[in-house]
């Protein structure tokens, strides 16, 4: 591609087309450009258009196209062709810095990005003159150029902040320092001087302050890995200037904007970060400067306003103080009572105030407010920073700080009492202060777990919290009500039980509040109280204690779901679930009404499921209703089915993907409750459950397998008689599942249920096929998980159909197959089987093979008899072998091409572990002893001789133990 006018013209035209809103024009143009980008000179043409075009839009378009081209192609990947020719690379590197610097800002940013992409690959070895070229420009005196250089340097160097130390990295940094540190320092000083000169020129100041901010960022990157010799030597210059800048105020640079941080804030914020870096990492060298910075930053905080634009600066500044004050050798900076008082009064208290922005969020954006306030996503807020500072100060000054704050708390409460309508925010701040002062350790599950002993939480509760909770008008001062509820929630582990019990009915009343935050907190608080544990591992609050409030609680919870904005409130639904679970049979009388409401809700949300947590707890609540009611009276299962099946049918028919797995779980629960044969309503659904489409969704597989297992348990006979034509389809599901390394265990669950429950005749014709499939999978991709499941299955089969049947079916597939499986699979792998029931099945199965299978005694399989017995004894006695071959470790990930909906398991739809052998065998060791005894009496002399010739002494010793325990002797 030659560099001529024709080509430039063509390129311009295509670039123009890529801006077209019409995809029919745009896409072909994009395709074309991509198809020619491999040709030599393409990038040079692009840069020429960028430089020479008269059309501003085309220039920007060329810049963006160029950057994306660099992003895609610059890196040379090993074993792949070099996508940009070497002359082009050289030409690009030779021109790009100049080009960037002479371009308007919009283009400059694109090119700066491109330079850092190239730099990431080529700098420093393959682009040795980049740095010097950049440094030279510092002398240009043109701050448009200088800022371009600084921005580029920042994007090149910022990775030093997070990469691991390595020789390569440090060599690069050293090189950068050698070339860059001195000029950067000169530039820093010169820029500060210029700020003096142009102190009244707002436009000049703006540019200069962006330079200073960038320089401060570069300082941070260059000093991050370790303290460079250069900066140690020049610490005086940098720190003195940083300190001056921190204390500097320039009216001209103050902005009117309340939200967006101005240049001054950005610069000071970065300086706080720089100081924090030095304080943390280079303490020894930084010590002489630290006190000055503490004072400056503290003064900064005292003089900074409440506007949102200062938030980052303030929270960075407070975090700096918080990190310094808990270091032993700086504690003297804070220990003076006056200092502590000032910090408390001027830094902490003001930053805990409820601001108008908070008030807006409380009213209009309650969801976000709750997430921030309740779930702690407030990591960079002022309140959070202030709390951290309180905790930091408490490390050494818990007594004095508590004393100072107690004074503030009471004065704020007095203010409030004078005129609550006007001064309610004072009480809010007081409560917040008490909370932050008292909390030493906290978890979601238990609230505060460790509290400041100097704060009397109970007394504060009685004097200030209870009043608000008891207030007859639930809708007055919603923020204070929410604070009070949150107080109970937060300190629930600290408050005595009587006080908690006292609040329960009050919280129930607050469920009726109009404020979303308020009733949400009430629901959440109740939910948390209900999960508290009392003595002997029961709930702290008992159903009996709840009896007087049960009706009101349930009523209000359901009514609060009708308040605008809370129709799918997950906290309320979770509280409903938790109330059911706590109250147990006490809810039975209300269920007939409630189930209608829950079903109605389900019908509504199934139109458009949008709140996964709400929906999950809704299904959990349904499960609880069913379990609790049917436990008292199993016959009521029919009425649940009557209520639920219409909605379920609609969900299944409309294929509401999010809900289908839940529906299967609830249906499994219902079906498992049935004691007689399977109802016809279920049988009608059976063919549909085998539809391939359902099985294609990952989330459906576990609940569907469980549902089919329930069908087999309750209705195997019905299936065999009335739906025998569906058996191949059922086995087809098994076949599909075992083909997958991730789902094969589910396939085995199904197969085990089939073998356990289906009448033998009904599956006779398929047995051989089943084994062939299993052998094929074993041959093609054997994994530990598969082998474990396989072992359990064949032993279950052996238990059910007998050892002879097992041996015969194996040998009918291929001669000597049985011996091969015993030798290559059972003996070496049985040790890996895990789970009590699974091990028991294997033990009983192997015992049968050893003692009820003539082929093991009389054919060439005989040589396997002793090793198999030894493996069985190993299964009894040795620890489980949980080693997995190396290449299997990542199987789950490798075999997952697309991540689909996760299966959401319902805790309250839980299934008990099933033991197909049950009480028939209580101790497999005794069974082995007895079975060997029986075998030895059938062929006297043989068993003892086989044992004595080939069983190792240790195994023999264990065996003697079993024989003794069973009081039998071998003959």
């Amino acid at each position, binding site marked *: 591609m030659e560099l001529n006018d024709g080509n430039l013209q063509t390129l311009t035209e295509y670039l123009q087309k890529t801006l077209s809103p019409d995809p029919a024009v745009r896409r072909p143009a994009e395709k074309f450009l991509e198809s020619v980008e491999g040709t030599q000179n393409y990038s040079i043409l692009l840069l020429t258009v960028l430089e020479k075009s008269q059309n501003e839009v085309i220039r920007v378009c060329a810049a963006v196209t160029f950057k994306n081209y660099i992003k895609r192609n610059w890196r040379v990947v090993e074993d792949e062709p070099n996508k940009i020719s070497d002359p082009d690379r050289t030409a690009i590197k030779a021109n790009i810095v100049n080009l960037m610097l002479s371009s308007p800002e919009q283009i400059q940013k694109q090119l700066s990005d491109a330079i850092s992409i190239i730099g990431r690959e080529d700098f420093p070895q393959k682009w040795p003159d980049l740095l010097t070229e950049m440094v030279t420009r510092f002398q240009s005196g043109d701050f448009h150029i200088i800022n371009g250089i600084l921005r580029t340097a920042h994007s090149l160097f910022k990775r030093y902040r997070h990469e691991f130390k390595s020789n390569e990295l440090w060599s690069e940094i050293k090189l950068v320092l050698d070339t860059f540190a001195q000029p950067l320092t000169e530039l820093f000083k010169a820029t500060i001087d210029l700020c003096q000169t142009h102190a009244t020129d707002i436009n000049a100041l703006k540019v200069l302050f962006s330079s200073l901010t960038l320089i401060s960022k570069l300082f941070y990157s260059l000093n991050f890995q370790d303290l460079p010799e250069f900066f140690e030597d020049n610490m005086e210059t940098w720190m003195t200037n940083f300190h001056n800048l921190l204390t500097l105020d320039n009216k001209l640079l103050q902005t009117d904007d309340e939200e967006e941080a101005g240049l001054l804030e950005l610069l000071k914020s970065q300086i706080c970060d720089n100081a924090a870096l030095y304080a943390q990492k280079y*303490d020894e060298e930084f010590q002489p400067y630290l006190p000055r910075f503490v004072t400056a930053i503290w003064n900064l905080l005292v003089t900074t306003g409440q506007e949102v634009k200062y938030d980052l600066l303030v929270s960075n500044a407070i975090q700096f103080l918080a990190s310094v004050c808990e270091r032993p050798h700086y504690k003297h900076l804070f220990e003076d009572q006056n200092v502590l008082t000032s910090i408390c009064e001027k830094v902490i208290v003001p930053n805990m105030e409820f601001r108008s922005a908070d008030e807006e969020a409380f009213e209009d954006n309650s969801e976000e407010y709750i997430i921030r306030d309740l779930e702690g996503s407030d990591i960079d807020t002022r309140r959070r920073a202030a709390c951290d500072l309180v905790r930091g100060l408490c490390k050494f000054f818990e007594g004095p700080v508590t004393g100072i704050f107690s004074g503030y708390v009471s004065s704020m409460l007095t203010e409030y009492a004078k005129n609550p309508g006007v001064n309610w925010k004072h009480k809010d701040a007081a409560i917040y202060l008490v909370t932050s002062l008292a909390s030493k350790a*906290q978890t979601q599950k238990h609230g505060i777990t460790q509290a400041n002993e100097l704060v009397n939480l109970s007394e504060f509760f009685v004097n200030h919290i209870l009043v608000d909770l008891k207030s007859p008008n639930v809708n007055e001062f919603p923020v204070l009500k929410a604070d009070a509820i949150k107080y109970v929630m937060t300190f629930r582990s600290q408050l005595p039980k009587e006080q908690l019990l006292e609040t329960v009915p009050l919280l129930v009343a607050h469920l009726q509040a109009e404020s979303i935050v308020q009733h949400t907190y009430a629901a959440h608080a109740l939910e948390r109280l209900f999960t508290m544990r009392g003595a002997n591992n029961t709930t702290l609050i008992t159903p009996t204690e709840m009896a007087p409030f049960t009706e009101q609680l349930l009523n209000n919870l359901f009514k609060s779901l009708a308040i605008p904005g809370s129709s799918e409130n997950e906290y309320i639904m979770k509280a409903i679930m938790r109330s059911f679970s706590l109250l147990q049979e006490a809810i039975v009388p209300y269920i007939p009404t409630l189930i209608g409401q829950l079903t109605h809700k389900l019908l509504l949300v199934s139109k458009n499921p949008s709140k996964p947590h709400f929906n999950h707890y809704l299904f959990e609540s349904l499960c609880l209703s069913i379990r609790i009611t049917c436990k008292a009276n199993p016959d009521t299962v029919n009425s649940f089915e009557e209520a639920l099946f219409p909605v379920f049918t609609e969900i299944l028919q409309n294929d509401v993907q999010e809900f289908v797995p839940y529906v299967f779980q609830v249906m499994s629960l219902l079906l498992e409750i049935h004691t007689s044969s399977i109802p016809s309503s279920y049988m009608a659904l059976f063919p549909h459950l085998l539809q391939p489409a359902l099985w294609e969704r990952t989330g459906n597989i576990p609940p569907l397998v469980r549902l089919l297992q329930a069908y087999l348990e309750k209705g195997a006979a019905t299936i065999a008689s009335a739906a025998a034509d569906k058996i191949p389809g059922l086995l087809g599901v098994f*076949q599909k599942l075992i083909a997958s390394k*991730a789902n094969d265990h589910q396939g085995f669950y199904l197969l085990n249920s089939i073998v356990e429950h289906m009448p033998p005749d009904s599956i006779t014709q398929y047995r051989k096929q089943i084994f062939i499939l299993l052998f094929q999978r074993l041959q093609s991709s054997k994994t530990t998980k598969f082998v474990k499941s396989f072992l359990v299955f064949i032993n279950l089969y052996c238990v059910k159909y007998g050892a002879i049947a097992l041996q015969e079916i194996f040998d009918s597939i291929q001669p000597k197959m049985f011996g091969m499986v015993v030798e290559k699979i059972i003996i070496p792998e049985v040790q890996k089987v895990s789970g009590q029931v699974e091990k028991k099945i294997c033990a009983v199965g192997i015992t049968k093979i050893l003692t009820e299978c003539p082929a093991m005694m009389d054919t060439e399989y005989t040589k396997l008899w002793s090793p198999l017995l030894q493996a069985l004894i190993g299964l009894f006695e040795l620890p489980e072998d949980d080693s997995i071959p190396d290449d299997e470790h990542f199987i789950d990930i490798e075999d997952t091409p697309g991540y689909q909906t996760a299966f959401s398991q319902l805790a309250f739809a839980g299934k008990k572990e099933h033991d197909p052998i049950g009480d028939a065998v209580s101790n497999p060791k005794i069974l082995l002893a007895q079975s060997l005894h029986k075998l030895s009496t059938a062929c006297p002399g043989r068993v003892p001789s086989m044992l004595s010739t080939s069983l190792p002494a240790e195994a023999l010793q264990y065996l003697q133990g079993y024989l003794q325990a069973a009081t039998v002797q071998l003959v």
Partner: protein
Amino acid sequence: MPTENLSDKRMSKFKNKGKEPTKMRDRRIAECVELRKAHKVEGIMKRRNISSVGDEEPLSPEYNTDNKQVISEAIQEIVANVNNECPEKQRQGCQAARKLLSRERNPPLKEIVEAGLLTRFVEFLGRNDDPTLQFEAAWSLTNVASGTSWHTQQVVEHGAVPAFIALLASPMLNISEQAVGYLRNLTWTLSNLCRNKNPFPRFSAVQQMLPSIIQLLHHSDKSILSDACWAISYLTDGPNERIDVVIKTGVLPRLVELLGFEELAVVTPALRSIGNIVSGSDLQTQAAIDAGVLSALPLLMRHPKSSVQKEAAWAVSNIAAGPCQQIQQLITCGLLAPLVDLLRNGDFKTQREAVWAVTNYTSGGTVDQVVHLVKCGALEAILNLLQAKDAKTVLVILDAINNIFLAAEKLGEVDKLCLLVEEVGGLDRIEFLQNHENNAVYRAAQALIEKYFSEDGDDQCLTTEATDSNFVFGASDVQKRFDF
């Protein structure tokens, strides 16, 4: 590890989960690129030219020039004098060489070597009849040996080691007024001869010097002790075979004793030597433990100088990388409390070493030992350090947290640990690290969150994409033969 016996293999397979114990230990890394100023104490070691022996006039200007011509002429004159048969001329030549080599800037070390003077100087070392000549030659050689490793090597190659050792027996060192001064210089020379790593000093040379160094380690002069200790620290800063040679001299009890000295100049190199030794094999570490190092370390971990704290923490981190019996000894000897103190209050470099100690401990310790460490407050302390501005430290901490969780899994106490981590604010910090710019850090944080802190974590069931098949049951092609 020199030998690969069974227990070592077992260790790298299970205990340290694939990390070679040697790798876990030897973190004094080959990374020699430094951004910082060379450390002050070590800086003194590098160049300490012997310029004024006794009271002499300051160097004349002619010796302080960088003019090649002048220097070359001066060297020619030295060569002539030194090769002269007259003892007086020889003494003059040596003295001139020594002065030339003592200048602060750019001493012409290479030029002296290239002028072939070393052979003659070494020869003079043996001139018992002329002590002045002997010592002038010695100081010249010393100044050359204090250069780069090439210079040191040149001195050794010329057979200076046995000559220096012989010189230590010189009557001058007992009778002269300057005896102590001479002995200090000679000790310093020996330490220089031991110093370099690329290449290491020859084994035979080390063997020759060791007895003298050990003897000097018992001297009462602090400066001599210091340099002798530095010599040991250089000799132990290498592969395990080199450490072995030092241990075999039986020096360990003395080194441990020196750890208790007040003088920083002695404690620092003694501690460095011990640190090097415990970074060796398990047996070598055990030898140091048997010599009582664990009773000396707690005091050093509470030393007022943070550089000493750091070195002590480094030693502990290497002992913690050993088998659980050695970890048990850390517990018995009361090292956990000072370790946790360092994690809480040490300066950053010390905290970093202490973090390594925790990670090594938790990856090699038994479940009980890990529980004990957590009870001592180490978990809370490392969780606080997750705010450290150093990606590697953060990653190492996440590793330790993971190890502690593995122990909790074995005890069935994961939930309890989760609560503990959350209580002390650790969960917030780990969650925050999911935004870390460093990929390894963010992945490690994410893995912890997913595995232990995500409510739905256990419900996820990954699987393959389903095919469009009809689920028709039946094996397609029956394989000819199954063979497992």
